[in-house]
C-alpha cells in the first residue's frame, strides 16, 4: 500500500495538456480583451487603464481576433484528435471512463446533493470523469459553438451575411451580438465558479491541481476521486492487497 501511494497515474497525455494550455491562454486573453465591450461605459469611466493596458481599443480588438481564431483551431485539433484516438483504438468508449454524459451522472448529482445536505452518508463513486468534470467539459463545447460561431460571424460580417436567408437579415445581427456577449459572460462566470472551485479552491487541490502540467495524479488521489476508473485499471492489484 505504501509503495502504491507514491505511484502516479498518467491522467492526461502531452497532447491533451498542450490543448488545455492553449485553451486557457486564449480564454484569458479573450476575456481580458473582450471585457471592455461588455460594459463599455462603466469600464471607460472607472477602469480606463484596462483598455490602455491592452494597447487601446484597436489593438485589443486584434488580440481578441487572433486569440479567438487560435482557440477555434485548438478546438478543431481537439475534435480531430478525439476522432483519431477513437478510430485507432487508443481511446475506447466505456461507461466508467467516457466523458459522454450517461444516466448515472444524473444519479450521481442527486446522490451528491443528498450528501451535501447530510441525507446520505456516502458520496457517489465516480469513474474517470465525474458529472462535475463532464459539465465543465461540455460547457466548453457549448461555448465553442455559440461564442465561437457568433464571434466568427462578427469578425467577418460582410462575408458571412451571404449565408443568412433574407427573412433573418433584420434581426440576425442583434441575435448574434446578444449571443456572443451573453454567452461570454456565462462562460466567464462558469469558469470563475465551477472550474476555479473544483480545480483550484477545492480543499484537496488549493492552490491548484498540478495535473495540468504533469498530467499525473497520485494513485491515492485516484482511488479517492475516481474509484471506478481505479477499479478498472488496477482492479487485480487491489484484489491482491485485500
Amino acid at each position, binding site marked *: 500500500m505504501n509503495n502504491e501511494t507514491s505511484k502516479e497515474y498518467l491522467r492526461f497525455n502531452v497532447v491533451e495538456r498542450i490543448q488545455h494550455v492553449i485553451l486557457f491562454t486564449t480564454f484569458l486573453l479573450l476575456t481580458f480583451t473582450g471585457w471592455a465591450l461588455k460594459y463599455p461605459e462603466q469600464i471607460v469611466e472607472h477602469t480606463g487603464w484596462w483598455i490602455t493596458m491592452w494597447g487601446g481599443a484597436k489593438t485589443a480588438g486584434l488580440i481578441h481576433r487572433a486569440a479567438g481564431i487560435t482557440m477555434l483551431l485548438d478546438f478543431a485539433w481537439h475534435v480531430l484528435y478525439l476522432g483519431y484516438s477513437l478510430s485507432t483504438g487508443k481511446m475506447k468508449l466505456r461507461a466508467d471512463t467516457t466523458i459522454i454524459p450517461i444516466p448515472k451522472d444524473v444519479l450521481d448529482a442527486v446522490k451528491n446533493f443528498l450528501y*451535501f445536505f447530510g441525507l446520505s452518508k456516502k458520496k457517489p463513486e465516480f469513474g474517470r470523469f465525474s458529472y462535475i468534470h463532464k459539465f465543465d467539459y461540455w460547457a466548453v463545447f457549448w461555448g465553442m459553438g455559440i461564442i465561437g460561431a457568433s464571434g466568427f460571424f462578427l469578425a467577418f460580417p460582410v462575408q458571412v451575411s451571404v449565408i443568412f436567408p433574407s427573412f433573418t437579415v433584420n434581426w440576425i445581427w442583434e441575435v448574434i451580438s446578444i449571443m456572443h456577449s451573453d454567452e461570454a459572460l456565462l462562460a466567464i462566470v462558469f469558469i470563475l465558479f465551477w472550474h476555479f472551485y473544483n480545480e483550484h479552491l477545492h480543499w484537496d487541490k488549493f492552490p491548484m491541481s498540478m495535473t495540468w502540467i504533469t498530467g499525473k495524479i497520485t494513485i491515492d488521489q485516484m482511488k479517492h476521486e475516481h474509484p471506478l476508473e481505479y477499479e478498472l485499471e488496477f482492479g487485480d492489484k487491489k484484489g491482491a492487497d485485500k
Partner: protein
Amino acid sequence: MRRLFLIVLLWLPLLCFTCSASAETFTCLACHSAMKGKIRTEAGALINVNVDGEQYAASVHGGFDCLTCHKQLSTNPHEPAKTAGIPKNVASLAGKIPHKAKVDPIALAACVECHDAAYDALQQSVHGKNVIDKKQSDGALCIDCHGSPHYITPKNTAASMVGKKNIVKTCGECHENEELAKKYNFGTHILERYRESFHGKKYIIGHPNAPTCVNCHGYHDVRKWDDPKSPVAWDNRTETCGKCHKGATKKFVTAITHKHIGKDAPIPYWFEKGLIVLLLSVFAFITGHVILEAISEIRDRIFRKKEGHHE
C-alpha cells in the same frame, strides 16, 4: 549672438498676432469680458453678454475683429440694425432666420461669408430646411452643433463639440430630447441603440475607426433616411457601409436599424430573454453546487474528521 537676437525680434510680432486679437476687439472686450450674467433683449430673449477674452483668443476665430461677424454693432451703445455695407449673401440669409436669432441675425448669418459650402449644404439638409423653410426656432443651425463661435476649437481637440469625442453627445442634445422627439416625430431610443451596438461600444471605448452618427448620416447636409439623397437611404447604403465594410451587399446593409429591441424586433427580444433564463439557471446551479459542496467539505473536516480523510 546678434543674429539670435534678430531672429527672436522677428518672431515677436508673430507671437503677438497669435496670442491676441486686434485693437478693436479689445475695445469690445473691455466691457464684454467684464460683464457677467444675462440680459433681456427687447424681444424678450435672455442672452449671455459675457465673452471670455482668453477663451476667445484661443479659439479658431480668435484673430477676428468682433465686427467681422457682428457687422451692425459698431456703435456704442449698440444702435438698431443698419443694413448698409452688409454683404448681399449675409443679408439675404439673415432675412430668412430672424426667428432663430435671439439678438443678431446678421452675426448668425455671417458664417456664410467664409463657410459658404457648409452653409449651402446645410440649407439642403433636414436641419436647414426646418429652420429656413419651416421657420422653426428650435431646429439646428451652426451654433447648435458647433457651440458659440467665440469658443470653437479645431475638431481634433477635446473641447470641440463636433469632434469625435463629443459628436454623439452633441447630436443627443436634441435627438434624446423628449419634447423635440414628440414634436418632430423621431425616436429618442436611437442613440441608446447606437451605444448598445458594436459600433457604439467601440466608439465608447475609444476605437479610432468606430463610426459615429455623422460617418453614416452625414453632417451639414444630413437628411432624413427616406430622402433618396440621404447616405443611409436604401439605394445609397451599400456605398455608405462600404466605406468601412468593403464589398457590402444589400443583404448586409440591412443589419443596422437602430430599432427598439422589443415590439419592433420580437425575435432578438425573446432570444435575449431566453438566454437570460439559461444564464440565471446555470448560475443558480453552479453557485448552489459550489457553496453546498464547500459547506459539506468543511462539515466533513470539522465534525466527521475520520470519514472525510483519505483512506
